């Protein structure tokens, strides 16, 4: 019985130590890597993109959009490149590419949301190294939509919310496991 109290107690104190490390990791502030803002109009049944970035699990992309009209905003796991076509630079991604991707590779749609005449903010932390491209699609067949976007890429040691949640869950378990052992040790010291 005493041996099991010791084993569980030490497991508890180790859990508390790990939780403290996770809390410390979650408290280290994020570093701003890059941020850019812009605006564009999206013609009916057309797409517009903001370019591609390679993201890793220590990065968080934060996006804020203001939409006039109706737009579907996608975060796609694709790489688009600028091309010089008919005297202008444009990304090599059009509405046909989007339709094909949605039908044949739905797993590459990381995030999707329809935004209608509103301000909307969201953030995303990848769980692997991936290419990410924000795509605006205007589903309307007659109205042009306008979007202003603000994209920020931040770097952190770990996904803060996830790490903090684990620390918050592990700490009470650790304390519960450690209390009998700590009380036992304290009683023994008092007797000595």
């Amino acid at each position: 019985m005493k041996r099991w109290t010791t084993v569980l107690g030490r497991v508890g104190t180790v859990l508390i130590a790990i939780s403290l490390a996770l809390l410390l990791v979650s408290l280290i502030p994020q570093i701003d890597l890059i941020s850019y803002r812009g605006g564009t109009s999206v013609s009916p049944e057309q797409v517009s993109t903001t370019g591609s970035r390679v993201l890793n699990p220590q990065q968080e992309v934060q996006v804020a959009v203001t939409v006039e009209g109706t737009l579907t905003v996608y975060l796609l796991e694709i790489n688009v490149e600028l091309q010089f076509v008919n005297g202008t630079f444009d990304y090599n991604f059009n509405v046909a590419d989007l339709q094909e991707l949605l039908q044949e590779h739905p797993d590459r749609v990381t995030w999707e949301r329809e935004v209608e005449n509103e301000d909307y903010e969201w953030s995303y932390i990848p769980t692997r190294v991936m290419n990410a491209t924000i795509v605006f699609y205007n589903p309307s067949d007659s109205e042009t939509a306008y979007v202003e976007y603000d994209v920020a890429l931040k770097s952190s040691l770990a996904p803060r919310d996830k790490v903090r949640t684990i620390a918050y869950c592990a700490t009470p378990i650790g304390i519960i496991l450690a209390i009998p052992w700590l009380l036992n040790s304290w009683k023994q010291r008092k007797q000595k």
Partner: protein
Amino acid sequence: MGKGKPFLEVLSSAIHEDYRFPFLEVFAFLYALGTFVFASFGVTITAQGATNEAIAYDVVSSTLSIPLFIFIILVFKNIAHGLGSDLEKGIIQTYFSYPLRRRGILTAKLLSALGVALLLFLGIQISALYILAPDIILPQLGTVLLTYAASLSYPLLIAGIMLLLTLKLRRGGISLVVGLVLYFAMSMVSGIATIFAIYTENPVSLQIISAISPSLVLQQYYGGMLGDFWAPAFSEVLLYTGVSYVIVAFIFFLGYIYFSRRLNL
């Protein structure tokens, strides 16, 4: 009394000595913190340019830098100081009076010194990496485990040599110094071997070192940083890792033989 109970007695006594409060907790804290602080996915990696295996190797290698050194300190302390002081104080002689074979006593001591330390180190590091990048770690678990196996082989070899020295000298101070010297000597020797291999464009020196420290061949397999003159195949990586563990097992086998038959206390 069965054989299980005296074995557990020796094991619990060894764990109690090796991991006095708050040793275990401090090391657990450092492993968890170190994994996140040193984890790096590489700034220049492009999603198309690197395979998932190479990314998994890169991130595991980056987390191994300082946490591996902390792990080595813990293992060296346990073997040199733990076993050495038990021999000096005559605690091992007391264990010999237990209804337990000598190899059982050494197994219990090594389970405490190495097994618990390995469990703590790998458990915390792999869990932390899973929290960080589940879609890299889980699909590439084989690569992750191979990277750990290749990186831990040389420290385990030194641990075996330290075990032999501690048993021979019956004190841990000198074996601790020898262990640390051997650990740092490897980085110097591999540096010299690398320069030699690059100038001669002959990988023999690197292949010899890979037989005791297979992290070198794994690094060349995934990174190819040392040049085109050596492009090891995956089977070669497995072969070098296997050979290194055969050497480690042989050194520990010698330790068991010495402890069981030659150690006169």
